[in-house]
């Protein structure tokens, strides 16, 4: 087990190192004159990064690290909301599809995932804004909170901050934050939801073929009991690592979603930095997003290996 963890950690560190190399190339290209040679420059750059020095943004004149800290929570809030939605919707739908395999419900769900998988995120966002915000006027068009509320930033996650706020308008502010969150979170949830549906379906189909399912059914347990206790429980370990890979996709879709909804997150900041040619910010932003992606997906993989004995055994077998 220790060997596995060390290997994983080694891989993670190599990955991050390659990332810093890419980021350094970005800077190297910027300093065309390049007074020092490549290697020493790179080492100095690494030292800077380790000391938490991400440079100064040329657009605002403030440290980049501070900006990342300021924008990151909003992105995190959006991504977490999207993930929650995708699990809440995806797992039951995927289970239904697996149970009705080959029948019309299954076909309908699979066709739905095919469409959900093909739809451009930014366009879907615009359509929903057109319909729910402009046409029906139910939900706000953009932003994180109505300008009428003044909420002090504590965590940066607006739904939490509004609850923490010490004001008589705490409750309306919270509801307003939630109303702002609904559309972007729904849009962002589309892609992971289709993935959750597909993974749950295929994993559950695999599990339902097993003998212990048949045994449980012959024992006289109801179908629901068998699915919940034996089916889904054994399907999750198969599905979770691939879902961990979805972090990256969600985070990149979040960039598009933030642009459409004018959500004050990392993605919008990154794209505007690219437009402003603010290289320190681009470097810091891409490093932050990529690091978060890689760490999150490794963490999911390691956790699922730690929790589920069957996967642990698979590693030992592979190592031989």
């Amino acid at each position, binding site marked *: 087990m220790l060997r596995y963890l060390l290997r994983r950690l080694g891989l993670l560190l190599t990955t991050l190192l390659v990332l810093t190399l890419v980021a350094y190339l970005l800077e190297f290209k910027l300093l065309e004159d390049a007074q020092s040679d490549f290697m020493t420059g790179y080492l100095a750059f690494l030292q800077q990064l380790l000391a938490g020095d991400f440079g100064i943004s040329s657009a605002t004149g403030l440290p980049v690290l501070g900006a990342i800290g300021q924008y990151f929570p909003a992105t995190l809030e959006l991504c977490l909301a999207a993930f929650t939605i995708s699990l809440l919707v995806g797992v039951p739908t995927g289970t239904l599809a697996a149970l009705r395999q080959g029948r019309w419900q299954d076909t309908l769900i699979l066709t739905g995932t*095919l469409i959900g998988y093909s739809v*451009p995120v*930014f*366009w879907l966002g615009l359509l929903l804004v*057109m319909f729910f915000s402009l046409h029906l006027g139910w939900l706000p068009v953009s932003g994180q909170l109505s300008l009428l509320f003044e909420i002090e930033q504590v965590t940066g996650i607006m739904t939490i901050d509004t609850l923490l706020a010490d004001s008589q308008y705490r409750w309306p502010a919270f509801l307003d934050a939630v109303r702002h969150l609904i559309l972007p979170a729904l849009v962002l949830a589309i892609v992971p939801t289709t993935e959750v549906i597909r993974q749950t379906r295929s994993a559950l189909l695999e599990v339902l073929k097993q003998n212990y399912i048949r045994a449980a059914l012959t024992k006289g347990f109801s179908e629901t009991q068998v699915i919940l206790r034996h089916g889904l429980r054994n399907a999750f370990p198969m599905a979770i690592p691939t879902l961990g890979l979805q972090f990256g996709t969600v*985070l990149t879709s979040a960039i598009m979603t933030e642009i459409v909804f004018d959500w004050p997150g990392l993605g919008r900041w990154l794209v505007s930095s*690219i437009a402003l040619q603010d290289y320190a910010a681009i470097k810091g932003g891409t490093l932050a997003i*990529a690091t978060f992606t890689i760490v999150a997906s490794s963490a999911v993989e390691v956790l699922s290996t730690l929790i589920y004995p069957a996967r642990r055994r698979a590693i030992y077998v592979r190592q031989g």
Partner: protein
Amino acid sequence: MSGRANIYPELHVRSPREQAWELFRKNTLGMIGLWGLGLLSLLTLLAPWLAPYAPYEQFSQALLMPPSWADEGNIDFFLGTDDLGRDMLSRLVFGARLTFGNAVLVVLVALLAGGCIGIVGGMSKGFKASILNHFLDTLLSIPSLLLAIIFVAILGPGLFNTLIAITLALTPQFTRAIYNAVSDEMQKEYITALRLDGGTRWRILRFGVLPNLSDTIVSQTTRGLSAAILDITAVGFLGLGAQPPRPEWGAMLSDAMDLVYLAPWTVTLPGLAILLSVLVVNMVGEGLRQAINEVMD
């Protein structure tokens, strides 16, 4: 086997490819997708002859005209016009070249580059293969769109740079898929037999490995193509790809974002074009994967 008389009273065993094609033809969604893909390719190739107007031609008497089925619409501009009086239909048809055509190009280049690296890596063992493995895992853990955005940030905005960036971002996926397929193939017994027969590496590759790669190539190509279309339009939408007057679908969308309320069709139509083209590619890919899997079982 028509036309040729079967003089041997033997059962004709159909090749896996024929079986897969038979299965695919029975898949309604897949066939619809295939027809759609064919139409889209025709549209891309014949754009100048099919489009009623030039993509940049402005009709100052017909600004923001709604599509022809609306009350104020005009049949001269079937899908309406945008805020500069340019015909939407013509722009969308020419946009198929910029979006779909470029996506095909990008995927072909990525397939070629990724395929070569994958084959070389898959046929070698030990240290070289291990380095490739880890490097690919690194690159693959970053989603292709983010990778493309990073590359565009380095190279600078523009359509050509976007295409390079997306090629670079897609190549690891192709390399990974082909690498896995080749190294799986290398474990098989008939390859060992070829090697024991004294076959050179080239011979093993030509007769043992390559004929069995087509499934991987087909499914990875469709997957890559849909990713390429989405990435090109996404980068275009962010304003980092094709620049506004060009009718690239993503750029058209971001250009029309201010018109959402005034002229919804300028936003819906380019998005619909993107959705439909990605959808037909995915439908074909899904159908092919199902057919190939069934034959394999």
